[in-house]
């Protein structure tokens, strides 16, 4: 087979693969619909896709959905921002100081052994049902993966590059800017991708424990009133939120790491 027809085959395969995903989604939706229609379950146990869709439109028009989504999004973004910022700063310091790493690592490891879901009620009790406790929870959940990947990223810089920079009499700051940041970026992004996904979980956990607004609150309220279609709407909104965050990080990764082979080949 010549390379041209091989290429064509590959394109067809890629196109088919993309279609397959959509087909699979449609099939799942259809299965859900059939189950709701003929499953004999009441609507407050399993609403049909059309129930969910109408509930979605109503919540959209009333502004209810936007209000709760906005609250969750704000918590997620602020938590991500503060969690990532502190993780980067501490990660850089730890990467540079083995002594400090040894002093702090028992606390860091222990902090990871504590399930955040279990201490979320405590944090809400201490810091109130407002936005602050949610930012804290999101920040804490994001902190560790970003921290670990920052440390590994900086540590992974090959020593030969430091020799090169020092032979050129580069300053500490220049080494950071021209060497350590770009070299650590691929591993750092791995941590941020995990952090972005976890951040949504963190916000919802906080809201379920105690809050006034947010998608977690919406789920709680709707469940209490047997408004199951609304629970579905809230859950789907959370999924879309998490996917968007993941997509943004992946997009940034592609933009900043264009030099990596597997990225520019895609």
């Amino acid at each position: 087979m010549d390379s041209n027809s091989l290429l064509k085959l590959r394109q067809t395969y890629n196109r088919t693969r993309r279609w397959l995903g959509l087909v699979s989604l449609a099939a799942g939706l259809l299965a859900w619909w059939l189950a709701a229609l003929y499953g004999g379950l009441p609507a407050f146990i399993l609403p049909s896709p059309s129930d969910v869709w109408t509930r979605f439109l109503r919540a959209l028009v009333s502004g209810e959905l936007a209000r709760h989504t906005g609250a969750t999004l704000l918590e997620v973004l602020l938590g991500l921002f503060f969690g990532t910022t502190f993780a980067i700063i501490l990660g850089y310091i730890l990467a540079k100081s083995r002594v400090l790493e040894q002093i702090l690592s028992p606390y860091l490891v222990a902090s990871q052994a504590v399930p955040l879901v279990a201490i979320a009620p405590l944090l809400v009790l201490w810091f109130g049902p407002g936005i602050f406790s949610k930012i804290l929870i999101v920040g804490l959940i994001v902190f560790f993966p970003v921290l670990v990947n920052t440390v590994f990223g900086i540590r992974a810089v090959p020593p030969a590059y430091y020799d090169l920079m020092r032979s050129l009499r580069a300053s500490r700051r220049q080494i950071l800017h021209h060497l350590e940041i770009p070299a650590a970026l691929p591993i750092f992004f791995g941590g941020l991708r995990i952090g972005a996904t976890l951040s949504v979980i963190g916000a919802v956990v906080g809201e379920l424990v105690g809050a006034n607004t947010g998608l977690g609150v919406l789920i709680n309220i709707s469940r209490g009133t047997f408004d199951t279609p609304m629970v579905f709407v809230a859950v789907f909104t959370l999924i879309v939120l998490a996917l968007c965050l993941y997509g943004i990080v992946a997009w940034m990764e592609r933009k900043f790491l264009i030099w990596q082979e597997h990225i520019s080949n895609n």
Partner: protein
Amino acid sequence: MPASSPNPILVADKLTITFPDGNGGLHALNDVSFHVQVREFVAVLGPSGSGKSTLLRIIAGLIAPTHGNYTFASGQSPRIGMVFQQANLMPWRTVIQNIMLPLELQGMNAAEARTHAQDLIELVGLQGFEDNWPRDLSGGMAQRVAIARALIHDPDLLLLDEPFGSLDALTRERMWMELSRIWQARRKTVIMVTHSIEEALFLSDRVLVLTQRPGNVKLDLKVDLPRPRKDEMRYTAHFGKLAGKLKDAIG
């Protein structure tokens, strides 16, 4: 050692270094003394483990000697251009951006640095590859970029640490011709570490032979082959005689 050195740019005096290893220390260099003249190409030859790379790292200012010292003609720390065994190109910078790095570190703006880098691109014969990523380059091409990067800031001293050690034999020999031509064009003071007798003779004006650890200068041989160096010279009787002397010194 030529005592009548008219114009030494570098004087190394009894350089000694011991690395701590928990067992009395690893004695890598012992009383290494030599001069390097301005625009001289000096090769440092020695068996592996003779501390020749360590010597280069001391001169580059990357590590400090345990005893002894070295002084530069200018009295201050010189501008260094260094080429390592691996090209050490930054994978997130394109070819031309890699070459520009030393100028950027000196604070030159990008546009001006780019013009300078373009000259170097032509010098090392990489026209058309300016905007390629390092991962697209062969070993020989990557090392050309590394040489261009080491030259762009007009260094007082060019330090080459087995620059062709990771290349295949054919590419290496081609790079000798290239380096010889580049040196002819730029006339830098060069110190090159190598374990190849042929490479040392073909490129340099003088060869210092270091002994097995702890390294010490065993022979200081002047290479009186005419310049520009030609490939055929490697097969002459005189080249063979010089090679014999170096071989005997290495032991």
